[in-house]
């Protein structure tokens, strides 16, 4: 992380970060986000995250960005996993346990089929 020295630096850095983000969205990398607030962790988000990591390592999947985020604010729905395939809309899964996480990785991330029965519906 570079240290910034003036307001101009901050503005410049933000623009650069914006560009990097846009590039990231276009370069065809899959993004997986796990909700890891207190509620998520209590519901087992760490195990889910580990299961996803294990799957990525075991199957040697390239170009996957795995991130964590805070709570979405839906108690009873955690752990929440959001999957964005390149050039596709974001898909949100609810109550993802490690087994489901494996299944999502296999079916959705690798094969490209959305698992409708696990979707978070409004």
């Amino acid at each position: 992380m570079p240290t910034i020295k003036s307001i101009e630096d901050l503005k410049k850095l933000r623009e650069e970060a914006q560009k990097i983000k846009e590039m990231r969205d276009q370069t065809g990398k899959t993004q997986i986000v796990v909700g890891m607030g207190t509620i998520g962790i209590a519901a087992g988000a760490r195990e889910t995250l580990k299961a996803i990591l294990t799957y990525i390592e075991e199957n040697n999947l390239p170009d996957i960005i795995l991130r964590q985020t805070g709570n979405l604010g839906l108690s009873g729905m955690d752990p929440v996993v959001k999957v964005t395939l390149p050039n596709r809309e974001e898909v949100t899964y609810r109550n993802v346990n490690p087994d489901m996480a494996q299944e999502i990785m296999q079916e959705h991330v690798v094969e490209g089929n959305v698992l409708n029965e696990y979707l978070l519906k409004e």
Partner: protein
Amino acid sequence: MKKYRSMVLISNGDSSQSKGSEAVIEAIHQALNKYDLASEVYVTNIPDSGSPKAQPLVIIYPEAVAYGPIHAEDVDFLVSEHLYKGRVAESLRVNDPFEIKRIAWLVQRTGTMPAENRVVLEYVGVIDPTSINDFLTHDGGQAFPIVIEMKPQEVIDIIKKSGLRGRGGAGFPVGVKWQAVRDAPGDKKYIVCNADESEPGTFKDRVILEGNPFSMIEAMLIAGYACGADEGYIYIRGEYHDALEKITNAIKAAKEFGVLGQNILKTGFSFDIHVHSGAGAYICGEETALLASIEGKRGEPRSKPPYPTTNGLWGKPTLINNVETLGNIPPIIHNGPEWFRSIGTTSSPGTKVYTILGNVNRTGLMEVPMGITLREVIGIYGKGMKGGAFKFAQTGGSSGSIIPAILQDTPMDFDSYRNVGVALGSGALLICDDSNCIVDCVRVLMKFFKVESCGKCVPCRIGTEQTLQIMTDISEGRGTMEQLEQLDLLRKGMEQLSNCGLGQTAGTPIKNMLEHFRAEVEAHIKLGVCPAGVCAMEG
């Protein structure tokens, strides 16, 4: 969070379903696809409301027009008239006079949307809370550069113009508080972020801190610049381990990044933030007790005035704001006060984060514009009652109010609630159905207050003990009518004579109970029965 132009609410309870509401929902989705409106209109079900004559009932916002009864064959006309061409389909409007009376609350909702509008929570659950880069790519860090090029007084004027009111529960105008700290004499001033969220049932501050800790740092920087302070404290509840870790890491990252410390970005403005883990008592959320706790003393409140704005931390002028209040600051600076005023009601602009819990189908966190009604909250976000009818709701944790069913159509904002004698509180909404007994509920609350009273002043120490005793007597069938009078007297005594907010609000549940549920309490005393069947009546 996606923004919608219109919102369609369809009643889909048992009674509506028997009249074909499912087919109506299906037809509405089809019609929206046909007219290519599906991305602009949000469709949701609500429980049965109004009389059966008008079911299935369809309500369309922001015009707040109620249609009913609607059948599947009416849908195409309704969608094309109202949503596509934008005019009210008069022929389908509810015309039953009795029904019109029952949905009279809709009138004051014209022009508003009960839709979720995330301002404070906008990037919570979206960004990575451990990465300052991710924060910067999501509109973060935009407000501070604007502020640093302004004069401090101009910043305060913007906050005043926005009409932002404190979200901790009391609803004090934020701009006025900032001005008071700025005008207070002294060269050393402090900013304190109150994250000691100890009201039972609230967890909004935790979610904000965990989800977007950098915005809190940005807000404190802005407050520090505007008020002339150079040091800040975040007093965070001791149980919030994850939030504590996230905010500590965020501060470390911000220091390495160069936006915290001496002479920030060569502007001549210095600011540093310390994190203080809470002392684990309910009372430490009260501002003077909180300050005492930071100073290393016992977390006991003192009498006010002098207020912390002139005589706060170590006797210096101190600004204390709630997490949610501070979370509103960067969006206001970034989007302007006029934008902020366009959300919510005139007297209470902006949004409010609520935690909804209790006997509803879906619990959780939501951020909605001020002025939404409790009926809408239960219907749209709680997805209806779990079974049983709505009896009362408790707002804002223990020291909040008990809202009876007759007040569920009151707009939820600071002034409207004050006008009907209740308080909005800090944001917890505990929804209770008719299987709950009011006496039992208040008894549990009084037990909480008895345990949490610090014991410094007599009205609170003795008052909570005595009221708990009386409530226990009533709930066990030993109550008398004289005790009920005494209860009211004790309640008034606590309210008027107590030293701090804890004692002053401890009597609120009793006040609300005697005002709205007196018959139920008297049934315990005179008839010796608990109408809800909760209390173990022995006497």
